[in-house]
């Protein structure tokens, strides 16, 4: 459980740093690296990447939006078109990032010698 939580937090942190220096898909690298450093079973690895970036993007988008009084998100939520729903826009933002990071973390979970090794670590 601790390993799971640490993975999530680390994914979020590393993804944030990657966002400062790399293109948007830096989150995939971050999630992959965390997945390799902290091996977990595929499902848990996926969920760590997924939740890590979901939380990061959710918090960032929400934070930016609240500082902006929703001026831009309301407009973009019509351009895209999401019926002007900022909540939906933030949710989709987070889900897209989460999906990419989750897949990358899933891939990372297979970078190991044996299945048993992973099971041992998980237990």
């Amino acid at each position: 459980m601790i390993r799971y939580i640490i993975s999530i937090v680390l994914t979020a942190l590393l993804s944030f740093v990657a966002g400062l220096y790399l293109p948007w898909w830096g989150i995939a690298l971050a999630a992959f690296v965390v997945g390799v450093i902290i091996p977990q079973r595929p499902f848990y690895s996926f969920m760590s990447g997924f939740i890590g970036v979901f939380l990061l993007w959710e918090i960032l988008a929400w934070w930016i939006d609240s500082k902006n009084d929703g001026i831009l998100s309301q407009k973009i939520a019509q351009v895209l078109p999401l019926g002007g729903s900022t909540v939906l826009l933030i949710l989709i933002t987070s889900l897209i990032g989460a999906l990419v990071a989750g897949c990358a973390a899933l891939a990372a979970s297979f970078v190991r010698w044996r299945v048993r090794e992973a099971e041992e670590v998980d237990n």
Partner: protein
Amino acid sequence: MRIIPLLISTLITVALIILLSMQWGKVPPIGKFLSPQHGFWQNADPIDKNFDESVKLPDLAGKAEIYFDDRLVPHVFASTDEDAYFAQGYLHAKFRLWQMEFQVYAAAGRLSELIGRKALNYDREKRRLGMVYAAEIAAKEIENDPTSKRECDAYTAGVNAYIANLKESELPVEYKLLNYKPEKWSNLKTALFLKAMCYDLAGSENDFERTNAKTVFGFEDYEKMFPAAQDSVDPIIPKGTVYPPAALSVKQPASADSLYFDIKDSSEIVPQKPKKDNGSNNWVVSGKKTKSGAPILCNDPHLGLNLPSLWYEMQINTPSMNVYGATFPGGPGVIIGFNDSCAFGLTNGGRDVMDYYEIKFRDETMKEYWFNGAWKAADFRYEHILIKGEPEMIDTVAYTVFGPVMFDKKFSGMQRRTNGNYYALRWKGHDPSNEFLFFNKMDHAKNYDDYYAAIHYLHTPGQNCLFACKNGDIAIWTQGEFPAKWKRQGEFIMPGTDSSYMWQGMIPQQENPHLINPERGFLSSANQVPADPSAYPYYLGGDFPPYRGIIINRYLNKWSNLTPKDMFTLQIENYNVFAEMARPVLMKNIDMNSLAEDERSYFDTLANWELHNDPELRAPTLFVVFWDTFNKVVWDDEFSKTKLPLVYPYASTLLEAILKDSAYKFLDNINTPAKETLRDDVTLAFKKAVAICKLADADGRMQWGKYKGTKINHLARLAPFSRTDLNVGGGTNCINATKEDHGPSWRMVVELTPKTDAYGVYPGGQSGNPGSPYYDSFIDTWAAGKYYPLWVMEKDDVKDKKVKYHMSLMGYTTNTRP
């Protein structure tokens, strides 16, 4: 390692990233676009964003200190003009980069690069119009003048300094949505922007439609529909002014009757046209009509209203000038504004400087054309049009002594069939001129002589240049380089087989209509005819809207002891002088006995109206619908005789016709055996109008403000980035000429007291970023007819409370660079 699951899941991840980095039709690359650290979220400025900044820029020679006030208007202080223009370029780019570039893409016929094939016809027309050709000529003029070169080079360097430091996350949101990146700026792009304005203001013609009208109706009837002059005119230079005889005499070609006026030619081509509403008001009252004793100058240019706005407000202070006003993101200098000594404003001159000639080519290769009795070789220009997702198209355009062959067998305009003829364009905008020098000299002007020297550099578009000085001088010149034409020259397509129909010369500048310090104590222009056509020695054309000028002059004649506040009242005046003249003749001719009860109640609405186009009233809607319907009732039967493109005669023509002649020929509906009278037409139109108004009433949108529905569209027509349903009055023929998406684009009132007292507002905001609170922050003030005081900052005001942010631009050489 579990190779297969690893490969599969890695592949899925990579594929996902690729898919989310691609554009799908109108959907931007969604991963990049939604990333909070890269995408549109980065454009959501905190509403209390701090614009304090200190930037080191290698290409800046000296430095510039920029102070933003609470409306985000920058006050630029620099020790040389070049540093100031550099800062102006930097600021334009920082706040308006996407707009600047998009406008230039549109001007240069490059929209296909951004949105693909659907813009191809638009692009081809711009290329064939010679927009890039014209801009290249203008850029050469800039290069040849040391002042302009220094100015434009500095401006371009400023724009590029901003672009060079721009991170991907900081790209304006439109780039992210349309998925492209800014190019470097250049003096050619500055020239392209200038030519876009030139086209907007001096690209108005109806030559094909007028040719069709002449052919369908015959020249005699044509003269009734499109008279060369109007009855009710109050020219810019008042009637009674005596003009010396023309220095340049123009002769109508001997063949004109047979080859021009009576020839039956026609064309189905409808070129793209700038809005014919492009016009403006300006006026100035001398000290003897003001409370303070100082002149007050006012200007409100009527242009297409867009977001981001065409205008960007700023102050530029250097040792050689201290100028405040509206600037064009896209070029250096202040365009409409004031400095420490004087104020200046512009309205459009509206003269026809765009004509077409029919060319006879030897064959379809267009290599040779018949001119002055011999075959003459054409030049060719190859226009490379890049198309998104497709190979480029090379459009070959032949150039003749007249200009580019805009329409030929390969191109007939926007989805129109061609008649197989070749039409070359003669446009004054192609001629060499350097209007930036005009703006530069105006910004530096200290007195009338400086102003007079400055306006010489304004060739096209011709403008009514209004001027006032703190020493009390006021002046107006209808300035521009205008071709001297014989009567109705260029109104129809002209024969292009010899030189006899070419423009014979330009009207000498000193013969342009002008007036200095008039006895009546004021000067004004509102796009009406500049001089009394019966007294002015050159032909002026007949395309001038008369009404705003009449009402402005009526008020200014009557009023005295004026203050800036009175000027606000006048600029936002909704009185409809056209309705004042039209309503009596219309109401007199409604057959009351034939009206049903509900129609009578609409009649009462019209009768009780006090002639103001105020937004909450229903009567202005009724009047406008009534007149439009009447116009259609009168003309549509004649117009339905042909499928050729035509334009309606002006409202002033129809009104003047029914005022003097109740048996005006066109009142009869030619499709009925009976002979309809004015009474029949007016009554029918009224009943039709009431039917339309009843629907509007049922929908709750009969109030004029709602019916008109003023809106300010985003330049790329992105509805969520636009502002719609503004409840604004006024309209065509009102001083407050606010139409649906067109109107006063910058309202300015300047009182030239020792310490200048100035006010202004434009329907936009200083930031071009739809994610900034400054994007549309002026719109509600503008819509309410209110103004902001314009603060002229002094060097010592650095600590003033009005300064909200401070930005320093520093060149490397002036600072720490070893």
